[in-house]
């Protein structure tokens, strides 16, 4: 029975296992921390640039469109886009590497993180799509009214309108799917909690 392992023996084997013993200098840690922050900043910047392009396009329409309906629609889209950018900015600030890892036990910490992400995705209609709907509706109404008078650009306008609606539906659907995936992970954690 010379090879028999009892649990206490395994504790010794575990604690005496050979290690690389690599240390991580503070400079390296700061560098990685900055890199992580830069990655988040770049992601936010991309979102802001996207918002700025949208605002610029509809600002142009607002200033140059002859019909009041199109101008009103453009103004509402600009306002909706600014709201979305503000919402993204607020969320971006909380999406950094959490600093409260030591305050929470593992189960609570992860459940909280997953719920936060899921709720954000679930609410995508209200904070990403709904703010654009009033402006887009007026914009589409103006385009349809124009077509009734002059159907020359029927195909082009139909394509643009379909594209806009299709993009919104696509965004809504992929985010709903991601939220459902997170929901399954939360349910798994809840099951674990019940087991305990």
């Amino acid at each position, binding site marked *: *029975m010379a*090879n*028999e*392992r*009892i*649990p206490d023996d*395994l*504790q010794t*084997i*575990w*604690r*005496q*296992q050979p*290690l*690389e*013993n*690599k*240390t*991580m200098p*503070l400079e*390296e*840690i*700061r560098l*990685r*921390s*900055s890199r*992580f*922050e*830069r990655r988040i*900043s770049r992601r936010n910047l991309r979102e802001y640039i996207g918002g700025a392009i949208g605002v610029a396009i509809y600002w142009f329409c607002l200033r140059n469109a002859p019909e009041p309906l199109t101008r009103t629609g453009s103004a509402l889209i600009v306002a909706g886009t600014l709201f979305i950018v503000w919402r993204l900015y607020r969320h971006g600030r909380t999406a950094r*590497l959490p*600093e*409260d*890892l*030591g*305050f*929470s*036990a*593992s*189960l*609570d*910490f*992860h459940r909280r*993180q997953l719920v936060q992400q899921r709720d954000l995705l679930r609410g995508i209609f209200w904070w990403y799509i709904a703010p654009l709907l009033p402006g887009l509706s007026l914009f589409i109404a103006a385009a349809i009214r124009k077509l009734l008078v002059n159907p020359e650009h029927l195909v082009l306008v139909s394509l643009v309108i379909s594209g806009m609606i299709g993009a919104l539906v696509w965004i809504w659907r992929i985010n709903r799917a991601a939220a459902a995936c997170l929901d399954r*992970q939360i349910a798994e954690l809840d099951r*674990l909690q019940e*087991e*305990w």
Partner: protein
Amino acid sequence: MTTWNVDSSQDGRYQTAAAEFGPALERLARAYEADADRRRDLLQEIHLALWRSFASWNGACSLRTWVYRVAHNAATSHVLRERRMRAQVLVSVEELEAMPDPVASEAAAGNRAALDRLLALVQGLKPLDRQVILSYLEGLEAAEIAEITGISAGNVATKIHRIKNVLARRFHQGACHGE
């Protein structure tokens, strides 16, 4: 470029923790990640999380509890993330207890083999069970494990009892097989 509000106490606390718990953190990373490259990344991630955590450390719990909480939370995030990509199936200690023990002819032939088997067993566990077994192997008391995981000390004791059973059975069987 963002700069952190770093005070000397944050650096100092991190350095103290890294010096005292560095080997334990390396063992912990090994238990969470089998792939050597990913394991190095995970260990760095844990060190980064630990350094950042000391910006808000308030001394409400012991340094050891704090370090293990941060490390386990960072490592569990890693497991959940990797699991999404690799669709790895993890089991609980209870499921492990109910499973037939694998026949391992060369098992327990030496410390290295015993360690490899132990690692394989730990790496296949669900995150919370993994935390308990690792804490047990590191020699932490049930009360401390409860503080780290957030479950009651009584439940931790039950869990440790089961873990000991599984370990004794699996490693004893390997030894008998080799006799």
